[in-house]
């Protein structure tokens, strides 16, 4: 298992658009994708799971990947947590 911690910088937090982009990317991987904030761990392939973390700008979130092509998943998915999405 690999993991890394990121800071959310999207100004209005992790809402519809960034969630969509992240979940879409996460489902491309066969490995397990989990997100951890504090004591809460959710499925990164679920937009509801992501929303339930209530990630706001400045929050830290840890990405855990486990399984097939996990290194690749970490490399691709990590930046999606801390990037500003443009319209």
């Amino acid at each position, binding site marked *: 298992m690999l993991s890394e911690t*990121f*800071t*959310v*910088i*999207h*100004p*209005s*937090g992790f*809402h*519809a*658009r960034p969630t*969509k982009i992240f*979940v*879409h990317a996460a*489902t491309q991987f066969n490995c397990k994708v989990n997100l951890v904030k504090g004591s809460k761990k*959710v*499925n990164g*392939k*679920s*937009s*509801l*799971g992501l*929303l*339930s973390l*209530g990630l*706001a*700008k*400045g929050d830290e979130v840890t990405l855990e990947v486990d399984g097939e092509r996990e290194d690749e998943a970490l490399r691709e998915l990590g930046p999606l947590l*801390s990037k*500003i999405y*443009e*319209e």
Partner: protein
Amino acid sequence: MSQQLTGIAASPGIAIARAFRYAHTAAETPERAEVADASAEAERFRAAVARAKTEIDAIRESTARRLGAAKAEIFEAHLMLLDDPDLVDAVLEQIDNESVNAEYALHEVTGMIVEMLRGMDSEMLRERATDVLDVSGRVMSHLKGRPYAALSGIAEETIIVAQDLTPSDTAQLDLDYVRGFVTEIGSRTSHSAIMARSLELPAIVGAGKAAADVPDGTTIILDATEGRIVVDPSDEELADYRARKEAYNARVAELKRLASEPSISADGAHVELAANIGGVEDVAKALENGADGVGLFRTEFLYMGRNSLPTEEEQHETYRHVLAKMEGKRVVIRTLDIGGDKELPYLSLPKESNPFLGQRAVRFCLSREDVFRTQLRALLRASTAGKLNIMFPMIAVAGELRQAKAILAEERAKLESEGIAVASDIEVGIMIEIPAAALNADYLAKEVDFFSIGTNDLIQYTMAADRMNDAVSYLYQPYHPSILRLVRMVIRAAEREGKWAGMCGEMAGDLTAIPLLLGLGLGEFSMSASSVLPARELIGMLSKQEWARLADEALQLGTQEEVKQFVEQRSRA
């Protein structure tokens, strides 16, 4: 007897029509039943999900056709919900574990998700609950074998009254008959509110439980400019609101027409009405509102809420994008304005006892050349994508400006020696927000291409008062003669050197201040996008020459109150 209700004006306009009470059928609780064959039940659920997806996909397509791809995005989110393991797998698991009917399992899982979302701090997330109810309601209707509640049967002029409208409700509204809607719950940022604005349909949300008592079929007036609902209006009220409605519609049409018009005073003086933006996401709104350019792009947002500095590449991409989208219209990008109340924790800057008088903005950049150079390189590389103006914030003395310009010239030379193209017509200017700079504007004007007056800070520094401090905020006086004299000084200094002077503080979008600023000779006004069209309309009615005379008169007055009163009287005249 008529009765009045109030709510949040979510989408402006005035409508008069019969009320149509609309209620969802999805809310009822299904019976719990044991099923003999759990796998067959799971299959029935999967089939209902698949049919719901097909329907939502059709709504998505028709919404994209009617309202554009951005508005259709919500239905993409709905389709994603129907793939979401936390929803779909959870229902399937419950069917499997408990051998329970699909309706019940769906209701249970949906209930938990909705409860979770409604408990969130963010208004936006709380509203996602409506989306979950919307998709699960649709799946439920397929499980029960009856059509999902439809608004398509309406065939007379109607104002819909509902507890809430889901995105698929709003997407189905037949605009030939629906004149507006009222909801009991919701906020300005609910999907229904956003949809109403893009459909240009008058809407009031959050009208409360009282809205539920509006009798079906009663005539109601929806004044969504004021957030007022008149139930069963009198003849006088009807006549009054019919007149208001006509006046309102005429005004909207007039403002719309202005989006593609130049910003020009009644006596033919051209000004530029630009928008302030904080990122790429604000550009579309600036363009829709007919902004002549971007007068202030605050780049600090690129640096905030993260662990490390943004890279040159990241910044370059953003700047290039904004410049390209503005299609050759002027874009003034302000270099990093950090310090004061805006911190970057990852730089661990020393605490200052007077941060507003400390190492802010350009002062910080000159002390951290590495940060500054990265931003300047990103800006220079993006410059070929449009019409770039670079602006240094908080310049107090000429030395700072020279230092900043020297660094800019060095970075340009480096890029050119690397064979990277840089535009030759980049204008370089400064923000005037420190009284010392305003008082010395004559001199500074020789070394810049433009000034932009930042009134928020200029007023605070001139009055030595923090406008966020309640005890002294009364000293935040944009109309005070001291401020107006500084503004005039800056504009005249620019004029003498053949440079342009703009304003990017809140004052620039203030309809009361605009006549005065036009009279003082301001050439560019930068404001929030939504203020551009009302400002353009106002300027079209003003004579610059006359206001030049009136502004001189106003500057003879001694207090903010006198100036304000004077301007208001003359504006009405």
